[in-house]
Structures are given as structure tokens and as C-alpha cells.
């Protein structure tokens, strides 16, 4: 084990501990003033819900990108399918964990799956499809990794043990099965994800309400999926000490095209979303709902983080040949995009809710509680840590 791995591993464990402490504090002290909207400044869905949305958007996007290579015949993307699938699994597990720990009655979380379900609730369908998605994804990954796991059986230590346990069930034609299951998985992912978009379509909140929100969610999933795949591949190869070239470089260039195209579509989507809310739909409430983003509490988040850092700078970095043809340039663009997407989630969740107040009331400013921030840091650290563990145990590197 290299020194850099030990140091970063310990740092990650420390950050996970910080996150766990934050979660514990959130549940033992009533820190968030959740109040009826007319009377106070409480926003019920806060940073952790935004984080959950971020993670499930990421997993959908990663699954779509990996499926492009695996199922839909984008052969250039095949070298990065393994990283994509592993990241998809890690992000959905952390995402479900986030929302499971965000709800107030953690021990009753399973009610939403069995026993007490309400079939008219979009939230129920969302949870249901995401759980199905996890199952399909695990099966898909098992089929996809099977051949390499057979090779890994010869190794000693933990890796060999894992491979021997995972290959107890026997299979043949695994790549074909992986393709079929992969199709089902990506389909489930998109269905689950559009459910998440529909969940925000609450009737009387003009910033959320609209039939295009599910489509917008899937679009932004492609953006974050492509960007996260680039980040994952780049950092993995950096830690391994391998230069990105050949097939993997070609894959990165393919992702550059996908990411650039998706960003352009997102720019149009964002622009028209705001213009339509402000002008053709002239109800006072609808117009008021975009004011916090134009020059209100969310203006910094929107103009600087979401538009500039998240959309325009990455687009320039990707489009310019000086940066776009280098792996580092694409990596930088992806990193900025993901940061922008994270702020976009905060704006979507919290920014949509501040508008519940109408005449004569002031808008509550978005206050992030320290415990929430601790938990967020912890969840990000957990994601990286799980990816690291998965990378070490599974046959990720092709051995000739």
C-alpha cells in the first residue's frame, strides 16, 4: 500500500466520523426549526435532501453513461464501463443512506417499502424503483465482472477470497446476460429518476411545478454522469500512477463530446425555464418564484456557481482544443460541472421551497446548519471510501 493511500484513507475515515457525528447530533437535538411556513423561517427539505437528489442524479447518469458503452454499442466507452458501474453502485447506496438518515424516524424507514405503502404517493414509487434499481445493478455487475472474477480466484488474500465467494454460483455467456440486465437496469434508473422529478411537481409551488421537470432531471443526470465518470477515471489513474492514453484517452474524448452536448442543452433548458416562469406565465406568484434566483438570496448560487462555474466555464474548457484535447482539461471541466450541479440541487430543493410565503412575508434566507454541513462532508467522504474499497476488492484493472 502506498503512502498516499494510507494518508488519504485515514483522512476519509476521519471525515466519515465527522459526518456520523453530524447525523447523530441532528437526531438527538431538534436543531432545525421546522415550522409552519406562514409563521416562521423553516424550510423542511434542506441540505441533506439536496444531497440525496445529487447522489441519485449521479447514479442515474453514471448508469446511463456505463450503459452507453456496455449495452448500446458505444464501443469507445467500453474501457470505462467498470468504473462507471462501480461508481453508480456506490452513489446509489450512499444516496439511499442519505435519505434514510434524513427522515426523522429512521427506524421506521422500511414502512415505505412494506406494510404501509400508499400507491398514490410518488415518493413510494420512487423508493420502490430505486430499490429495484439497486438489485438490478448488483446483478448486472455480477454478470459483467464474472469472467474477471474467475481469473481473480487464483490470487491470495482478501481479493481471492472475495472472488471465490462471488463465483460460487456458476454462469456462462455472462457478457450477454450483462447486456440484457444492463438494459433493464438503465430503464429502471430512468423510471425511478423521472419519479423523483415528478415528486417535486407540487401543485402550488410555481418554481417546481411543471411537466418538464422529470425530463430536466434526466438531462441533468447525463451531465453529472458524464462528468463524474471523467473524474473517477482521472483520479483512479492518477492514484495508480498511470498516464491516460490509448483506449482510455479515446473514452475521455467521447465523454467530452457527450458532456459538452448535454451542457449546451442544459443551458437552453435553464434559460427557457426561467424566462417562461417570469414572463408568459404572468401570475404574480410564478414571477415572484424566480426573483430569489435573479437578485435575491440564491443569486450567488445561481449566477456564479450554477451558471458560470457549472455551465459556461466547463463549456469553454471542453470546446477549446487547447484544453479539451488534454485529459486534464476535461477533468477540470468535469470537476467544475459537478460543483455546479451540486449547487443546482441546493437551489432546486431549498430555492423552490422559500417561495411558499406570499404577501407581506419576507423570504427566509438559506441557512445551512453546521451539523448538516458535517453530515454532507461525511457522506462525500463515505462515497470516495466505498469506491476505494470496491476498487481494491473487485477486478477493476485488466490483467493480461
Amino acid at each position, binding site marked *: 500500500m502506498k503512502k498516499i493511500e494510507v494518508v488519504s484513507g485515514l483522512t476519509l475515515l476521519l471525515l466519515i466520523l465527522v459526518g456520523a457525528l453530524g447525523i447523530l447530533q441532528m437526531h438527538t437535538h*431538534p436543531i432545525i426549526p421546522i415550522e409552519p411556513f406562514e409563521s416562521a423561517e423553516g424550510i423542511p427539505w434542506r441540505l441533506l435532501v439536496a444531497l440525496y437528489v445529487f447522489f441519485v442524479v449521479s447514479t442515474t447518469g453514471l448508469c446511463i453513461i456505463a450503459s452507453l458503452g456496455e449495452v448500446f454499442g458505444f464501443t469507445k466507452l467500453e474501457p470505462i464501463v467498470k468504473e462507471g458501474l462501480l461508481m453508480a453502485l456506490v452513489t446509489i447506496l450512499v444516496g439511499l443512506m442519505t435519505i434514510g438518515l434524513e427522515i426523522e424516524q429512521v427506524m421506521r424507514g422500511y414502512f*415505505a417499502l412494506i406494510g404501509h405503502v400508499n400507491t398514490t404517493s410518488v415518493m413510494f414509487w420512487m423508493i420502490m424503483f430505486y430499490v429495484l434499481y439497486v438489485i438490478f445493478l448488483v446483478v448486472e455487475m455480477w454478470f459483467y465482472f464474472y469472467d474477471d472474477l474467475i481469473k481473480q480466484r487464483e490470487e491470495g488474500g482478501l481479493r481471492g477470497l472475495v472472488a471465490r465467494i462471488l463465483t460460487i454460483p456458476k454462469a456462462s455467456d455472462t457478457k450477454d446476460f450483462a447486456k440484457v440486465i444492463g438494459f433493464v437496469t438503465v430503464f429502471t434508473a430512468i423510471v425511478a429518476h423521472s419519479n423523483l422529478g415528478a415528486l417535486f411537481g407540487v401543485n402550488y409551488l410555481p418554481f417546481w411545478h411543471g411537466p418538464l421537470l422529470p425530463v430536466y432531471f434526466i438531462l441533468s443526470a447525463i451531465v453529472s454522469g458524464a462528468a463524474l465518470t471523467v473524474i473517477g477515471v482521472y483520479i483512479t489513474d492518477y492514484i495508480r500512477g498511470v498516464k491516460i492514453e490509448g483506449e482510455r484517452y479515446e473514452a475521455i474524448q467521447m465523454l467530452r463530446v457527450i458532456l459538452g452536448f448535454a451542457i449546451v442543452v442544459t443551458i437552453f433548458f435553464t434559460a427557457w425555464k426561467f424566462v417562461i416562469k417570469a414572463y408568459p406565465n404572468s401570475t404574480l406568484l410564478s414571477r415572484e418564484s424566480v426573483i430569489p434566483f435573479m437578485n435575491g438570496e440564491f443569486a450567488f448560487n445561481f449566477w456564479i456557481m450554477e451558471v458560470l462555474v457549472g455551465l459556461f466555464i466547463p463549456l469553454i474548457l471542453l470546446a477549446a482544443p487547447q484544453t479539451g484535447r488534454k485529459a486534464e482539461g476535461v477533468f477540470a471541466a468535469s470537476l467544475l460541472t459537478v460543483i455546479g450541479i451540486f449547487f443546482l440541487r441546493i437551489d432546486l430543493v431549498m430555492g423552490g421551497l422559500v417561495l411558499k410565503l406570499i404577501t407581506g412575508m419576507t423570504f427566509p434566507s438559506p441557512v445551512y446548519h453546521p451539523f448538516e454541513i458535517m453530515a454532507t462532508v461525511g457522506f462525500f467522504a463515505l462515497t470516495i471510501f466505498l469506491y476505494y474499497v470496491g476498487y481494491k476488492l473487485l477486478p477493476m484493472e485488466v490483467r493480461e
Partner: protein
Amino acid sequence: MNRRDFLKLIAGFLPAVALVRGQSAVDSEKSYVMVVDVNKCIGCGNCVVACKTENDVPMDFKLSRTWIEGYSIKEKIPIEESDIRKEVLSTSKNPFLDKSWIETTKGRKTFYVPKLCNHCANAPCVNVCPVYARFYTKDGVVLVDKDTCIGCKYCIVACPYGATFLHPEQKVTDKCTFCYHRIKKGLKPACVLACPTGARVFGDISDENSEVSKLVKENRVAVLKPEEGTFPRVLYIGLDSYVVE
């Protein structure tokens, strides 16, 4: 085919839903409503305190099952440019006794609107709850099952009236129940009993001789946010158009 028939048709495809809900006009003997006369409300806040005492709602938080909104308006045309000052009384502290409030109300149109859960016949909170912790009783009251609620807060987000909140000690969502434990014994809700001017009237609308039936027949009544299609069971007499929610 009217809306109710349509809903029944849909419910036919989801027998489990229909069985649990039992929200049909036929098998309910009673249909409870509350009529609030805005003209009579003086903003004293007795109802708020009575509710908190009766229902174990925290006093020191700004959390309330029922609350009073005070409006002080200087009118202008177009109406959107009117100067509106709005205060909310929902704690044990009464902002309407403040000097600043009394000063601003001088020469202005001032009135108080009591608010509570509207017990909608088509309640968004019941529709969105993933675990069925919200349900209709046969007499039309919307209740929370506190042993089932997982605290996902979707109902708080979905309620157009802001009538739901998270109970800080019980860690589940809480809202007005029309004092269901009292009305089942034939008693009046605590807020109705505490009101010194009789601004709140509670009763069975299906009974033609009840006080609420008479009030609804004799007065023009309005509901809050009719455009949301929630069909509230709290009816207001003398509601002003400035009360947009």
C-alpha cells in the same frame, strides 16, 4: 360523470386503496365542518393557547396547529400595489399587543384571520404520504397516524396552507385534528370553546338544523385557495381578497 364517480372508478382498479380509504359520502353519518367568521375575530389568541394546552403542542416554539394572521392594509389601485402588513400570532406572545402593530393599524383596514388545517376532501398530504400515515375518517376529518409517520416531511412540502409542522419532541408531523378526541364524545373543539366572540363555529353540515348549516345557508362563504382543488372543510365568512392563502 362527475368527479366523485371518476374517483370511485379509479378506486375500483385499486381495491386496496378503496378499502383503506373509505372516504365516501354514503356510509358517513356525519360531515364535520368549521365556519370561521372573519368579521367577529378580534385577534385575542385564546384559541391558540387553548389548542396548545389541549393538544400538547409546544408553547415556546413558533409551532401551532392553529394560528391567527393579522392584516393591516393601505389600499391602492392596482390592488397588487397595496401596502400590506401581515403579522402572525402563533406563540404565547401576542404581537397584536405590540405598540408598533397598534401604530401601523391606525387609518388602515385591519382584520384578523384564524387559520388551521382545512381538512381537505381531496387532501394533498394524504395523496403524497408514502406510508399512509395520513388518512380520512368517515366523517371527513384528516388525521395523522403518529405510529406510522416516518418524518419524511413531504406533507409539509405538499400542504398549500402550511398547516402541517414537525413536532420537535415526537419527531413526527403534527396538525389540527378538529380535536377528534373531543368531537367523538360530542364536545366542541378547544379553539371553538375558547373563542370569546363566537367567530369559530363547528358542527355537522349534513344535519340541516345545525348551526353551521344555518350559517352556510344564510351567508356567503369562501374557502382558502380554491384554485388548488382541495375542497376544504373550513369555510370563511367575510374573507378579504388580500388573504391569498
